Every structure is written in C-alpha cells, then in structure tokens.
C-alpha cells in the first residue's frame, strides 16, 4: 500500500488537491475563497493530466531528440483547460463584484441574513 502511494506520488498529490479544493468550496463561507477552492480543484485535474504524460527518461517531443518522447497531447489539452479556467475565474469574480455592490457582503451567512430580511 505504502509502496503504491510512493510510486504514484504525483497522482496522490493531484487527488489531494482535488479533495482540498472540494473542501474549500464547501466549507469556506467567503465567496472569494470558494472561487479559490474551485481553482485548486481544477489545478488538481490539470496536474493529473500532466503527470499522466510523463515518461521516465523520456525526452521532449521534438523530432531531433532521441526517442522515447514524453506525450505532448495532454499538455496541449491542459493549455486549453487552463484558458477555460481563467475565463471561469474572471466571470466568477465579476459576479462577486456585483454581489458585493448589491448586498455589501461577501460571506454566505451574512448574505442569507440580508436576503431573508428583504
């Protein structure tokens, strides 16, 4: 069991990030922290892809180098996913600005009180 964890340390780290991200999204009362949790969650998935592309002793996928090569495709996919993640963060922060302008709070509990008293 320990051997398995040590030889798969990259994957273990990626899934720890997934767990931490989910926990922050659920447990944090502050909206900005929730968005940070979302980013950690996504980063876990990005690292999972990158770790899967790694090959022990592999060279960069440039044809002048010697085979075996590291798989380039997951890097390309994750580049796209990172762009999507940045766009999501931007939209989320835009909404948080509007919520703050409207209700004057960023915490979930206070927001609930403000909305209940409306």
């Amino acid at each position, binding site marked *: 069991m320990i051997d398995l964890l040590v030889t798969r340390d990259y994957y273990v780290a990626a899934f720890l990030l997934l767990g931490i991200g*989910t926990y922050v*999204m659920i447990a944090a009362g502050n*909206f900005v922290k*929730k*968005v940070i949790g*979302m980013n950690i*969650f*996504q980063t876990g*998935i990005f690292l*999972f*892809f990158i770790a*899967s592309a790694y090959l022990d002793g592999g060279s960069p996928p440039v044809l002048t180098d010697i085979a075996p090569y590291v798989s380039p*495709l*997951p890097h390309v*996919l994750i580049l*796209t*996913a990172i762009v*999507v993640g940045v*766009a*999501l963060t931007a*939209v*989320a922060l*835009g*909404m*948080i600005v*509007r*919520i703050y302008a*409207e*209700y004057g709070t960023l915490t979930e509990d206070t*927001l609930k009180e403000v*909305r209940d008293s409306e």
Partner: protein
Amino acid sequence: MSDLVALAVAAPIVGSLVALVAGIARSKSGWPVAVVACAVQLVVAAQLAATAFTEGTIEYVVGGFEAPYGIELVVDGLTATMIVLIAVVSLGVLAYARRAGPRSNPFYAVYMLLVTGLTGMSVTADLFNMYVFLEITGLAAYALVASGDRGRSAVAALKYLLVGTVGASLFLLGVGYAYIDTGTLNMADLAVKLAENGYDATLTQAAFAFIVVGLFIKVAVFPLHTWQPDAYAGAPDTVSALISALVSTIAAYALLRVVYTVFGAGFVDANPLAHAILVGGAVVSIVAGSLLAISQSEVKRMLAYSSVAQFGLVVAAISIGNVTALMGAAVHLVGHAIMKGGLFLTAGLVATETGARRVEEFDGLVQRSPVGAGVFGVLAVAMVGIPPTIGFAGKWYIAVGAAEAGSWALLAVIVGSTLLTLAYFARLVERMFFREPSVDLEPAVERVDARADGGEGATGVSLGMQATVVAAAVLAVALGFAVFGYSDALQPTIEALLS
C-alpha cells in the same frame, strides 16, 4: 456543401462577434444581428437534417487532420434533430426578447455564444472537444443568468458557476481516464479501443463514473440539481426559457452520446453498477423532482423542479437502452424543450401583463390574460402527457421501451410520474380557469436594462411575445402528430447507435 457542418458552429460565433463590435458603433443593434445569425443557422441546420435523414450520416474532418488524430464532426439523425431544435428555439426566443429584453449588445453576443456552445456539443465527435464546448455553453449560461438586474440573479449565477464547473471538471477527469486507457479522444475510435481493453477494466469503469456524474450535474439530476431552480428562477424570463429549453437538453443528449457511442450498450450490460447509477439517478429525479415541484409557491421555481423530474424520464430512457426507449428519449428531449421553454415564456408574459409570479396569484388568470392562461393551459396539458400532444408521445415511447425491456419497476415510476406531473399542473389550471381573481396586482414589468438604455417607455406585451408563446403551444400539439413520421426516419440512427 461539405463545409456546412462547420458553418453550423461558425455562424453563431460570427454573429456573436459582430453583435459585440456593432455595439461600439450603435447600441441596440444586437437584436437584428442575432436574428440574421440564427436564421442562417436554421437554414444550415435544416439542410444538414435533410441530408442526414435521406443520405445518412455526415462526417467532416476539421482542418484536414484525419480522424482519429484530428477533430471530427459527425451529424447523424439524432444530432440533426438537436441542431434543428437549437436553431428553432433560439430564433423563437429572440422573437420574444425583442420587447421583453434584456436588449444590450453584449447580451446578444453572449446569447449567440451559448448557441455556439450547444451546437458544438451536438456535432462534435471528439470527447475533449465536447468538454471545450461544454465549458463554452456553461460560461455563456452563467453570464446570461447574471444578466438580470437584481442581486438575486448574481447570487444564482455564482452558485450555478461553482456547481457547473465541478460538473464540467469531473467530465474532464473522466475524459482523462479514458484517454490514459486508450490513447485516443475520437469517440468512434474510443469505442473500439475500450471494447478491446475489456469492459471490466478499472480505468474504463472510473472514466464512465466520472463522465456520467459530471453530466448528471449539467443535466440537473437529483440530488445534483441544486443550482438549477435558483438559476431558472433568478434569471430574466427570456434567459430562463432559453436555458431551460436547451442547456440541460443538450447535456442529456451528450450523456446519451457518451453512454452509447463511446462506452456502448455492451459496457452498460457488463457493469451492473453502471446501469444502477443511471436507473438510480432517473428514479430519484422523477420522484423527488415532482414532489419538490408540488411544494413550490413560485411558478418559475415549480417549472424548474418539473424539469428535474422530466430529465429523470430521459435518463430512465437512456438506462433502458432499447430502440423504443431511446426514440422516446429523443422525442421527449425535443418535446420538453418546446413545452418547458414555452411555459417559461408564458410565465414571463403573464408576469408582464398581470404581475402574477406566484401560484396563488394565478387565480382567475383567464380573465386578466386570456392568451397567457390559454397557452399555459395547453402547455401544462401537454407536459402531463395527454394525447395527442408531444408530451404524450415521448412518455409513451419511454414507457413502451420499459415494458419491452421488462423493467416493470421503472415502468411503474414512469407511469406514476404522469400523475405527479398532473398534481402540480392541475392546481394551476384549476386556479387559472375556475376561480375568481382574489388579489389585485399591478402589472410589474421587469425592465431589465432600462437604466442602461436610457429607459424608453416600451412596456407591456408585444405581438412578438404573444406570437412566440402561441407558436410554442401549437408546436406542442402539432409535433405530437409529426412524431410517427419522425420515428421512422430516426429508426436507422438509433439502431446504428445500439449496434
């Protein structure tokens, strides 16, 4: 001709950009641009559908990179149905949005972006490409929900964003598992290689679980539906209608596509747990969604929970997985889009005309808003599934499919769902037609971007709004008659999907 598939995705993207740029020169120029782009899209979609149904599946390789290395676009009968549905609904909602708003150019730019994402999800035959379009759809939907002027919209949109992102990310994780398993992302190629690896491989099972749960969030299957009622109820009426009609529908289509094109019927048969996930999600959604709908007092929230139950039916059809049931899934997806989109538009029309937004405010509605009450009544009856409407046809196929497969427990739930649907719509119909109006309400017109536009006095109900809701009611009945011809045309597609 052969580039038409790409044009179906490109037309709304170009429309989106033009709407945004035109806004710099002249504000309020977004609507005509969006209408032109949607009309082009409709022509392209109709042409593609005609070809797909007469000559068979259309395959298109993007940029000359041969499949399975490049991204492939495929249009079969099911895809063609979805893109025609997207084009028709988006054009119809535009007719309503002319008066109802929001009217700013950025709104129409995001509107077209949503249409792009939905079309892309329908036509793509590449799993990662589907993820990208899923996120485009999601981003546009979050922004559209937030386009209401109240703080409620922003809170609903943020919740939708957080939950929706987790859904899309789980989908991506599942795609990653499938990619590590096989080294390919092309759906047809994946199907072959997953079958070679054997259906009991842990990687394949994990990929299935992640993708299905991710899409469950996007479809709003109970208990992963929590974003959906807030988003539908918090959004402006135009947006509620568009999103309720299309976003979950295309996510359910993606679920069908992934389960049967990528993993295949053999995978579901070989893994009882995979089958159990689908059946469990379906049954819980149908029952819990209906009960929650009954307990709502706000009309838009009730319609939102009703969607949870209706998509439970579609997931049930996917879990049954014979030709009749999948036919039912396709028919019910189209039917639900027309009926639920129409109901949200009608709810908006009624609110504009009379100010009624809650169930008890619908008392005696027929006297105050005859068109609204009439259309709402017809669509409610269609939703319950009374012949000859499209709602009946979809439920009938799914129920017959369940009987053919011998899933008697599921059949009982499906038939029972009709009674539950009746329970929450009958009380509205009764209030609308058989009670005297008890509360005095002022027409509370929601002027979403009045301040931004300088607020000209365009209030009240336009002819376009009325024409749209009446068209939805007519379609809901007329499609019920068209279904038999359609099912013959779709038969080969479904059989190919299951083989």
